[in-house]
Each structure stands twice: as C-alpha cells, then as structure tokens.
C-alpha cells in the first residue's frame, strides 16, 4: 500500500476541481507583481484582489531601500535561532519598535505569524490549564492548541454568551483559562465584539489573547487593532499578529505588559527551534511600520475602498459576509460552482482567493477578496463589474437585489 493512499479522497477532490480544464486554484503562479494592485498571471495583467496586502506596503519604496541597505551591511541571513546566534541588534530594535507602537512593555518577534500563534498558545497554556478557542479560529491557533498540553474547549463563533457558559462549567477547576479570539476573521471579514469578550474575561478572571493578524494597521485610531478601536487594550493580555499583511513583509509578534513574556523565550519551541528573521526583512518591516504610523490616511482609504467593494458586490446581487471590512467574501452554495466562478474571474482579469470547506465556516465555498488602500476606485468598480458579469453568466443574481 502506498504511503499516499490515505490521500486518495483528496486526490479525487482535486481531480474534480480541475476537471474540464479548470486551473488548480491552489497552484496559481503570479509571474511577478507590477505594482501592489496588479500582477502578471498567465502573461496577463491581472487585478489583485486576494493578497492581504492591505496597505500596499509590500511595494513600499522606503521598505525596499531599507532592505537593500540592511542586506549590504548585515548580509542576507542570520543562520541561527533566537536563543543561539540568531539575535542581532536589529531583532532587539524591531521588538522595541513594535512594543512602542502598541504602547506595551514587551515584545517577542517570531519568524512567521503562524509560529507566533503556535509559540504563544502552546507555551502559555500548560497541562493543567484550559484553552478556550473561537470555533472559527485560524489553523495556526488550532495547531498551537495541539502542540501544547492544555485542555481545549471551543466556543461558538463571536458569541461571548456561549463563552460565558463554558467558563461557568469550569468554575472551581484549578488551572489558568486562556481565551483566544481574532480581531478580524480571515474568512468572512467579520469583526470580534472585543469589548464584550473583555467583559467576560474580567468576570471569569481569565486571560485573553487576541490575534490581530488582519486588523493590525487596519482598525483603531492608530492601527493597533480591534482592541484599540473598542477601547479595551488593557484587558487584552497578549496581542499576537503578523508582518505579512498590513506591513507587507513576513514575521510574527506578540506584545504584552506581563513581565513573564521573557520566560516564554525559553520554553516556546516554535520560537527556539527555527532560524530568526533575516536582517533585510527586519529593516523593511521597521520602515513599513514607520510608514504605517506616518500615513494614517492609508487606513481611511482602505476602509473607503472596503465599503465601495462591499456595496458593489451586494448591489450586483451577490451574497457577502455580515459587514464591510478589508476582507470581503462572496458566499456561494456549491463547490463546483465556486470553482467555475473563480476560474471565470481569473479569465476576465481578477485574482481572488478560492476558499473551500472545511477551511470555511458553515461548509460554504467562498470567493474571498481582500481590499487595499492602493486600489483605485476605478479598479474596484472594474472588479465589481467582472463579478457581476460572471454572476449573470451563472444566473446567480439574488431576486431581491436584482430588482432593487
């Protein structure tokens, strides 16, 4: 028997997706980006509406120059882990800069956002502790819960009352309770009711970790995320996030006011047993952070663009997530239809993400788009037009909206 035979079902699903000459949606090649909003795909200029590059900073001139300068002075890699030879002055500097941005006392930087969740969640919640995870948590949160030894309890998505009920069942049990939520949920773009979760956390004497991966640089007056927007940063014990979205580079972080954070450096395996970020990435990240702080208008334009795309897709008769945010997903019913829709969008020059169950909530396939501050209104209108064209081809207009 082949070692791969357990994936026969997966092979069949993939074959079904690519039947009739469809592309493999998980193997798209962007030959190269021409700007933050346009990429060359299959030799054609294609509008990018699925890159998480919310502020367009992957193409920041300042970040590019900083990366080049750092590579010249420091070389291109550290060849070691943070607890051995992989901590350079630049790593300390970046940690200080991120801590200062969040007005927190401590920061730990990881090599990816995925590892930041893995490293924090597995190390914070030990054998006698409880982890309480939102049902729609990102894979990195679930994986972190499996790497550690805590008991893991799942509560209904964005439902503080359901969490309260589950915490009540744990009353009287020893062990710390760590609640994990996200700022903006990556699949549907819905925002966490952070103030309500903060209230539940206070009542129960629990700890709260917020993954602001999609909301850092996006929400809050200074871009510190949903906790800032909701005025409850003091209740969020640990903020985790990534540099790979609004800052346009790669890497992850955790900030906190708890002095214990420094101990996590010595017991978090995803922090200890992997090479640290290379100098050019750190330099680019710091330059992008500067730009994010200096240009709050990027956030305002981003939200204007998000509302424009959300309204446009709804007006075109498509079903979307519950609120306008930089992640706007079109919800479809059948996988087969979603695959064909996604292929047509790419034929007509728009790249979005195809997300399939079980990675999506409620078993629905999604055409997931992410908006950028650097999209022009004309680019957004063009993308909406193309969505509407394909929806008409597929006869997908919802009657109520179609006649409105």
């Amino acid at each position: 028997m082949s070692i791969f035979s357990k994936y026969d079902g997966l092979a069949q699903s993939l074959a079904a997706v690519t039947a009739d000459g469809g592309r493999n949606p998980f193997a798209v090649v962007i030959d190269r980006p021409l700007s933050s909003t346009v990429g060359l795909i299959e030799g054609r200029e294609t509008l990018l509406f699925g890159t998480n590059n919310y502020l367009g900073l992957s193409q920041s001139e300042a970040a590019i120059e900083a990366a080049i300068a750092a590579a010249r002075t420091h070389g291109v890699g550290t060849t070691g882990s943070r607890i051995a030879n992989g901590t350079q002055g630049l790593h300390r500097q970046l940690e200080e800069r991120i801590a200062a941005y969040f007005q927190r006392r401590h920061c730990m930087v990881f090599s990816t956002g995925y590892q930041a969740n893995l490293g924090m969640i597995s190390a914070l919640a030990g054998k006698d502790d409880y982890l309480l995870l939102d049902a729609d948590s990102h894979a990195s949160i679930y994986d972190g819960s499996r790497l550690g030894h805590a008991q893991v309890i799942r509560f209904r998505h964005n439902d503080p009352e359901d969490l309260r009920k589950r915490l009540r069942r744990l009353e009287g049990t020893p062990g710390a309770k760590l609640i994990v939520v996200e700022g903006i949920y990556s699949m549907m773009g819905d925002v966490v009711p952070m103030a309500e979760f903060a209230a539940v956390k206070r009542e129960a004497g629990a700890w709260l970790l917020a993954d602001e991966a999609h909301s850092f640089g996006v929400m809050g007056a200074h871009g510190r995320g949903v906790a800032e927007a909701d005025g409850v940063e003091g209740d969020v014990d640990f903020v985790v996030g990534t540099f790979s979205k609004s800052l346009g580079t790669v890497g992850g972080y955790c900030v906190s006011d708890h002095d214990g954070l420094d101990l996590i450096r010595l017991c978090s395996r995803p922090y200890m047993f992997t090479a640290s970020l290379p100098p050019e990435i750190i330099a680019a990240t710091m330059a992008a952070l500067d730009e994010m702080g200096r240009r709050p208008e990027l956030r305002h334009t981003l939200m204007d663009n998000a509302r424009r795309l959300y309204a446009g897709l709804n007006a075109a008769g498509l079903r979307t997530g519950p609120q306008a945010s930089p992640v706007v997903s079109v919800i479809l019913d059948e996988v087969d239809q979603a695959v064909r829709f996604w292929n047509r969008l790419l034929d007509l020059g728009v790249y979005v993400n195809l997300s399939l169950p079980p990675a999506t909530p409620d078993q629905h396939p999604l055409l997931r788009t992410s908006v950028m501050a650097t999209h022009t209104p004309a680019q957004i209108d063009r993308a909406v037009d193309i969505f509407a064209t394909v929806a008409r081809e597929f006869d997908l207009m919802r009657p109520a909206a179609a006649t409105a």
Partner: protein
Amino acid sequence: MSETVADVSALIVQTLLANPKVPRDINGSSKIVEDLAFDSLAVMNFVMEIEDSLDVSVPLDRLADIRTIDDLAACIVSLKQAS
C-alpha cells in the same frame, strides 16, 4: 441528573437523525467519521450541539480517542461525573 451511557447514546443518535444527510440506520456502535462521513469540522460542530443539550464541555483532545457514538457517550458521562 445521572444519565447512563445508554441514555446519552440515545440522545446523540436522536440529535444526529435530525440531520437529513445522516444515514437512517445508525446506532451506538456506528463510527462517527467512517459511518457518518463527517469531516473534522463536522465532528466538532455536532459535538457542540450535544454539549449544549447536556450542559457539558468536551475538550477537543478527548475527541481524538473517540471512534463510535458509544465512545462519545461514555466520555460525556465520565466528564459529567467528574464535575
């Protein structure tokens, strides 16, 4: 409030049968993944429904050892006795 494994198992079967996609001939010894064709997410979502009916939380790490409906029922009964 002292449900037996048989009581809990019957309640789980009843909850499952409310879903039209579930085969009609299931019983306590049916395997949750194989016989019901549930993926990991579907299992977690259906356990959440049972948790609500029985006012108990089943830690996800316990699910790894559960194969059949009776296994799940036994796990829930032991969790309720412990609390």
